[in-house]
């Protein structure tokens, strides 16, 4: 598996442990649940459900301030891991969403919008 959005590519990648079946989002050389080495990297579908959100109105850096207000969301991905991203302002907890990508402070970040249900 090549890069994901943290490396500037339009993709969300997670890791899946062959030994215990756990999924993890933060890249590591081992499974954080059981310690087995080399979890397999997989590309996520980008589908998920909104778990939580917060509309940032007061940003901490001049670069981020150009984007306010921006909605930070936690999304439960269909593949069974949770991730942080940006999303539409009118999202609600429980909404089904799909990932797109937008520029934020000079880089690509995942941006979720509601899917037709």
């Amino acid at each position, binding site marked *: 598996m090549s890069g994901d959005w*943290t490396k500037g590519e339009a993709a969300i990648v997670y890791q899946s442990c062959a030994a215990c079946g756990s999924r993890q*989002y*933060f*890249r590591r050389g081992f499974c954080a649940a059981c310690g087995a080495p080399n979890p397999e990297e997989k590309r996520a579908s980008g589908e998920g459900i909104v*778990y*939580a*959100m*917060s*509309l*940032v*109105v*007061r*940003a*901490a*850096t*001049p670069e*981020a301030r150009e*984007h306010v*207000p*921006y909605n*930070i969301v*936690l999304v439960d991905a269909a593949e069974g891991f*949770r*991730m*942080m*991203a*940006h999303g539409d302002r009118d999202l609600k*907890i429980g909404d089904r969403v799909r990932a797109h990508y937008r520029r*934020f*402070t000079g*880089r690509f*970040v995942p941006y979720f919008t509601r899917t037709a249900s």
Partner: protein
Amino acid sequence: MSFITGVGLTSFGKHEGSSTLDLMSKAAELAIADAGLKRSEIDGVLCGYSTVQPHIMLATVFAEHFGIKPSYAHAVQVGGATGLAMAMLAHTIVEAGLVRHVLVVSGENRLTGQSRDAAIQALAQVGHPEYEMPLGPTIPAYYGLVASRYMHEYGVSEEDLAEFAVLMRDNAADHPGAQFRDRITVADVMNSKPVALPLKLLDCCPVSDGGAAFVVSREPTSGIGVRVRGCAQAHTHQYVTTIPQFDAMGAAMSLKRASAASSIEIGDVRYAGIYDSFTITLAMLLEELGLAGRGEAAPRVRSGHFSRDGEMPLNTHGGLLSYGHCGVGGAMAHLVETQLQMTGRAGNRQVRDASIALLHGDGGVLSSHVSMFLERVR
């Protein structure tokens, strides 16, 4: 056994021109004098960190500056839980017989020593550098995320959260050292500037300058002893993204362990000092600790349960939300106020009965928890 024999607290707010070491020294002097000790009797030093003056060996720097030569000294870092983690460690090394009198001290010119942006950025580092930080979150945003989910799960409203800000301000109104003392209403909180919704400015603790200290000793140094009965910790996650369960953040686990260590149950508690970096923090901790049912903490604020003359007085100095938050010293102020209450020295803020107290702190995004039971002994 160990006892909190002395406490010291500066006012919080602006201390223009005071450095981290100045504020630490001031609080340390107060605490040592309060314990009736001489500087030379301090043989252990624990200190927190300062975002304004980062240093790889701050406890030694402080000891040298303060003019003492302890036999045990180092810094501790667990974010907002640092103060109570140091109290727990002090208790442990005193019980182990390593030292006789431990000075626990912290101070920081967090407000005037740096720009507000720098302060916010330094703290945002509790987020994941690759998977969270590029999204521009702030500390209020991490807690805003938590708040949105908690409100969704338990039917808590923004007005409910506002009650905690009003309560802390009412308490602070009677403490001359508090950063904010003008009473506020739920409407004031609702109308305050949005920061990271659902959290607004008055849902958030301020950034402050200040210092706090206490002495943990093997025996009481005055008539009324405040004994550390037992303490414990729990660490379930670091990042908001990896919170395992929103209804089991670690507070209950830490409390259960502290109960086992002290043979004190939550029902025995008469006074509480609970971490309140945001209104949602206080609401969630009160409910997870069992001081209120899920979604019931705010109604209990409205009914006066947590007021000074209520059944469970709480953060009578005004907490982080109104006394202020200077970093590690912020939550140490909860312990200072608790010790004053337990020894009957809280003046116009004195509660009827503070014979048994619970202190609880968290660091990160409800990531690291420390619980501690204190008991008054004569």
